[in-house]
């Protein structure tokens, strides 16, 4: 995977949170690369650590409560070694972030224009006039019909979809190389979701940015992403191109997720239910396959003692060896296709 165009290299990153005096890994040993002109989706259910990964890259954790190890190499700089001041040179300028809840992510007391131009105050030396022009241009770019009017409004005067567009405008104001979008469409209606994803894709094409799209929605991933990393319990369990992951999913977790989706062909059947629950941070097993307890019918010897990533095709990696023999209970007896 290491090519010259990987401008973001996440190497062996773990983030641990302090709970009752002990540190527990929320994400452990994450390795990921992002290139220009690509959308990398990180998909998983709540509690799998996907948002922690985003905030770790952005350096938004309180150092007193978290322990972070590894390396986040962004265009040759290890972000994790930077102090607050150093980080601020990257945040907003080279890395933009889009948050989930567009209402609470905007300051309720400031006009939209102020909130967008604030990011330019710190990273550009544009004049007030030029900043205003840029604000209007940005609002137009994210598909707001009347940018002059919207610029003067307050967040509560806008609809959810409009607010999310404003958040995107803030994130892209300084043409960052990397955009991290954390569940950007979760709070929105499907039609608005589709429009927002279109905007993201257009921006990526225009700015040649790399986008990390964090979502729990497999449909959004399938429609938007170029590459996918599936996370479970703080680890990446499968990654590959979107075609590889959706057409030939290998890891039992990926396959279980796809199977539990209501789809055209299972209208009248019961949906597949993954047994058990995601382990809490404190109860995360230190060794062994973290997904093993949820597929109890798989014999212990099918798992690795310390699961590692295995390349099943160029660029397609799966954690643990259990994928080789994994079958759902109702498939057992038949030969794996």
């Amino acid at each position, binding site marked *: 995977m290491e090519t010259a165009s990987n401008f973001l290299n996440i190497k062996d990153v773990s983030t641990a949170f302090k709970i009752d005096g002990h540190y527990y890994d929320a994400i452990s040993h994450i390795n990921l690369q992002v290139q220009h002109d690509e959308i990398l989706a990180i998909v998983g*259910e*709540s509690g799998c650590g996907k948002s922690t990964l985003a905030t770790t890259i952005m350096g938004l954790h309180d150092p007193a409560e978290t322990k972070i190890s590894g390396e986040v190499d962004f265009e040759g700089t290890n972000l994790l070694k930077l102090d607050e001041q150093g980080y601020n040179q990257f945040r907003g300028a080279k890395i933009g972030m889009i948050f989930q809840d567009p209402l609470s992510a905007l300051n309720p007391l400031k006009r939209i224009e102020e909130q967008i131009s604030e990011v330019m105050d710190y990273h550009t030396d544009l004049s007030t006039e030029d900043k205003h022009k840029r604000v209007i241009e940005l609002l137009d770019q994210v598909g707001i019909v009347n940018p002059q009017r919207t610029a003067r409004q307050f967040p509560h005067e806008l609809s*959810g979809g409009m607010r999310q567009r404003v958040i995107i405008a803030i994130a892209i104001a300084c043409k960052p190389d990397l955009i991290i979008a954390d569940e950007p469409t979760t709070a929105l*209606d*499907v*039609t608005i*979701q*589709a429009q927002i994803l279109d905007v993201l894709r257009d921006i990526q094409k225009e700015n040649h940015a790399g986008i990390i799209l964090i979502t*729990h*929605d*497999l*449909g*959004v991933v*399938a*429609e938007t992403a170029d590459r996918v990393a599936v996370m479970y319990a703080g680890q990446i369990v499968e990654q590959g191109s*979107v*075609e590889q992951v*959706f*057409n030939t999913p290998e890891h039992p977790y990926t396959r*279980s*997720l*796809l199977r*539990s*989706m*209501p*789809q*055209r062909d*299972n*209208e009248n059947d*019961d*949906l*597949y*239910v*993954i047994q058990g*629950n995601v382990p809490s941070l404190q109860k995360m097993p230190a060794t062994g396959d973290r997904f093993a307890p949820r597929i109890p019918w798989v014999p212990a010897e099918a798992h690795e003692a310390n699961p590692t990533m295995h390349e099943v095709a160029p660029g397609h990696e799966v954690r643990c060896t259990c994928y080789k023999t994994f079958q759902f209970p109702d498939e057992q007896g038949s030969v794996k296709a």
Partner: protein
Amino acid sequence: MSLIEIKDLKVHYPIRSGFWNRVTDSVRAVDGVSFNIEAGETYGLVGESGSGKSTTGKSVVGLEKVTSGAIMYKGRDITKAENRRKLDYNHDVQMIFQDSLSSLNPRKRIEDIIAEPLRNFEHLSKDDEKLRVLQLLDIVGLDADALYKYPHQFSGGQRQRIGVARAVATNPKLIIADEPVSALDLSVQAQVLNFMKKIQREFGISYLFISHDLGVVRHMCNNIAIMNRGRLVEIGTRDDIYNHPLHIYTKRLLAAIPETNVNSREAHRASRLAVEEVYREQQSKYYDEQGEAYPLVQVTPTHAVALPENVAQQLARQEGEVQA
């Protein structure tokens, strides 16, 4: 006869403005909605936020002050509180909410939460009540030790199942499920949906399933109504709606559902953009001069669409040709 018949339901909220705060206009949250729910079926009510689908649901339970129209149950109009009392209506109709944490009293134990409707409607002895609560927990797949726990001690999916257990405690005929799974993870969602289906099979309950998620609705519902700005724009069976949609709004919603088929995503995107364009440009064809949906016209015995008669017939013919 249908289990419940909703006839021309309207819920308008007054807008007050001006110096004297007089009613100057109204928000027509629900504006003339009619449909029937049959016994033992799951009826889907689909719409985007602000479409009035939740208001419709609340009206059916009797939680909303109805402006006009009727909701007929056992031959009586239950929009009147007096009739609801006579029929013991709130015993027969229960509700499941989207946010299971805020809809369960945090200071009550699960035993009391589930027993609450029993205490209101069925005066059981202490032992019988406990037995019943245990049965209910068993139905939704929770252990007996859940009895003495509090809502926050459960995961989202478990809480939603507790909500289901409470709703089915009185053996209701109809459950209004307002976005019951939209706050849940995929694997948990599957669990709750399976439970809802299982309970339906065992007890013959009907659901009014309110959701914005067309994928889930397709999985759950036999009959579906699409709601847009307070009015129904299309009613039909699952096949009618998903395979032969006629109204542009339905088509638009369907086109916006993300597909997991990676191989056809460019085609899917192109068709979505095409539908969007039609939606933008042909507003006048699909909506009247005030921008509101037309009254529904029947195109087949099961399928109705909110369009002028001639347009509806023409579209239905085209759709028929495509089928042939």
